[in-house]
């Protein structure tokens, strides 16, 4: 009996400790900052003719659940941009985990009879049929970033330029190498998830442009768009190239890990170019205290633009700077190069 009571006291203590730790831990899940969080990329309704409130437009929106800073920024931007218009009603549906779930969610969206649908599909090919269906039902579809293969499936396609990202990064590196008089530079590349088409396009643009200048990629490692995989691959790459002149990293989110690996290896003899254009990367470029000297954009601001254009489509208006009376059918954003000189202009677009 004595033994049993000992045990229960010990259990009580252990249980109490576990509960205490649990209570402490649940207090630790907060991510609230004290500063007000702005950050969304909106453009204030300017003073052109299109800005004036017009016919009411209901915009339905769907994007995959965010597992990455870029996708999160897409959803936030769309919401914020819609908020700037008094004549826009914004209806969003969770896209779920895969293409099938997004399709089901979109069916409920159609039932709410929106005037325009803005859609970042899980997979352009898999959601193509939905685009056709919605267009046939008379609802214009704005296809965001991941393209539908069928031209009948969208009213407007707005997307980034993956090939152009590689080209911009290569141009910056070529210019820098020429300025430094490096005849045959050692160039490294840290790509994103290698099985994705967008990664292949980025790498192709990079390699093609370098080849034109007579340069080549000495070593290429593929990470997984996460900081820890970026660190792992960068550590290997730095070990493989004891002396390097330039490095292009496809994604600024995984770049956190790449920069960590560079600090851990005590290396600083090369220049690094980032990709996508996160706020942290822009601030590092502006501060100019690391190897990161530039980043090439693939901006989630395209979601804000997509909402603006969807509104114009809903109101049957054109873009006021163009002669045409309707919004064009396809817009591909240019991949811009952010350096120390112009970083301050881009900071508001960082995610």
């Amino acid at each position: 009996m004595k033994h049993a009571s000992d045990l229960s006291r010990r259990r009580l203590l252990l249980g109490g400790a576990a509960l205490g730790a649990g209570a402490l831990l649940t207090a630790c899940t907060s991510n609230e900052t004290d500063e007000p969080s702005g950050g969304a990329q909106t453009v204030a309704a300017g003073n052109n003719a299109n800005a004036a409130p017009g016919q009411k437009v209901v915009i339905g929106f769907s994007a995959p659940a965010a597992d990455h800073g870029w996708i999160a920024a897409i959803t936030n931007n769309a919401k914020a941009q819609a908020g700037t218009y008094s004549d826009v009603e914004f209806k969003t549906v969770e896209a779920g985990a895969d293409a099938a779930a997004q399709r089901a969610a979109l069916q409920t969206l159609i039932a709410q009879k929106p005037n325009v649908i803005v859609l970042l599909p899980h997979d352009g090919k898999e959601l193509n049929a939905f685009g056709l269906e919605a267009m046939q039902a008379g609802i214009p579809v704005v296809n965001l970033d991941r393209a539908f293969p069928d031209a009948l499936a969208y009213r407007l396609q707005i997307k980034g330029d993956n090939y152009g990202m590689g080209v911009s990064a290569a141009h910056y590196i070529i210019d820098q190498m020429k300025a430094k008089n490096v005849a045959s530079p050692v160039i490294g590349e840290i790509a994103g998830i290698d099985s994705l088409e967008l990664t292949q396009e980025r790498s192709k643009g990079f390699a093609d442009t370098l080849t034109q200048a007579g340069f080549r990629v000495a070593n290429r490692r593929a990470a997984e768009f996460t900081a820890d995989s970026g660190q792992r691959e960068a550590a290997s790459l730095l070990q493989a190239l004891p002396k390097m002149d330039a490095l292009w990293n496809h994604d600024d989110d995984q770049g956190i890990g790449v920069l960590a690996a560079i600090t851990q290896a005590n290396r600083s003899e090369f220049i690094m170019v980032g990709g996508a254009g996160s706020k942290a990367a822009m601030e590092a470029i502006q501060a100019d205290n690391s190897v990161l000297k530039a980043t090439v954009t693939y901006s989630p601001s395209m979601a804000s633009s997509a909402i603006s254009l969807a509104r114009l489509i809903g109101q049957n208006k054109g873009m006021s700077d163009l002669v045409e009376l309707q919004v064009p059918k396809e817009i591909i954003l240019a991949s811009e190069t952010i350096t120390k000189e112009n970083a301050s202009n881009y900071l508001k677009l960082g995610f």
Partner: protein
Amino acid sequence: MTATTTAPVQEPEKHAAAKQSWWRDDSTEQMRRNLGLVGVLAVLIVIGIITKPELYSDGTWVRNNIFTILELASVIGVVTVGMTFVIIGGGIDLSVGAIIALAGVWSTTLATQDFGPGGMIFCALAVGIGVGVVNGILIAYGRLVAFIATLAMMVAARGLAAQISGKQTQVSTSSFINGLAANDFLGVPVLVYILAAVVAAGWVLLNRTTFGRRTVAVGGNVEAARLAGINVKRHTLLLYALSGLCCGIAAVMLTSQANSAQAAMANLYELDAIAAAIIGGTLLSGGRGTIIGSLLGVLVFSTITNLFAINNLSTEVQNMVKGGIIVAAVLIQQVQFKSLSQFFSKNKITTS
């Protein structure tokens, strides 16, 4: 690998006169397995020297490269120590990668970072142990199959991690945590010390304590262990808690390496850890395995990764080779240590 396969062919004949030859003795079997893995490591390094002589001729580079390989192995090595215990105890833990992500994310929230590095480390370890205990309760007392319970935990823990982080990458601002990966102590990276400490602790726990003996007993034959008076349920729970603790340590290490944590981190670490334990000679059905073997398994994989990186070969080829090595290692171990020795002892009987 050739060096290790030719050796057993001659050895048994030489010692055939002695009834208990060194090569066939059961007590040294694990040592022979480990020697085989050391042989594989040596072959990989020789391939490295042949393919990149200009790099290997530089002494400082070689030294740095050894530390790079060890640092690459450090996080997965710590996870594998916990995994080895669980597998020896007859279970499996598919949730290790997800526990690392959850512990990493939880310990890098702004609220936790306010408590400083001590608070962050406590949080990571507590979350790791906590999730491990939940796994253990589900499996030991809820009678769920380990595969199912930890599979469910894998999905759920990553979901919770994504929820807490708001799907963002959380940057660690603690210079102490980030310094773990960046700093050396007496010329050796701090992460390597942590790996060494965990491996040493794991070795002592498995080989020199009743806890370790009980683990082998439970994994070898649950019913016999129960009849021998071992509290099998409590022991199983402790094994998963131990695995969770290792994941908590690994989460701190990985956070320091990447200077950040996110819900998608430590992707597929469960498979890497299981693979390393298996080629290290741990029996998937439980009851047998060593910490040193698992460590060698991890080192083989990180040496391959390093070899492929310095030769600029793609990740796809690397994954194919990894798969091949897992199969080859298990096949060689079976053929080499069971069939071959049986084959030769039979031959001896028939010919003499």
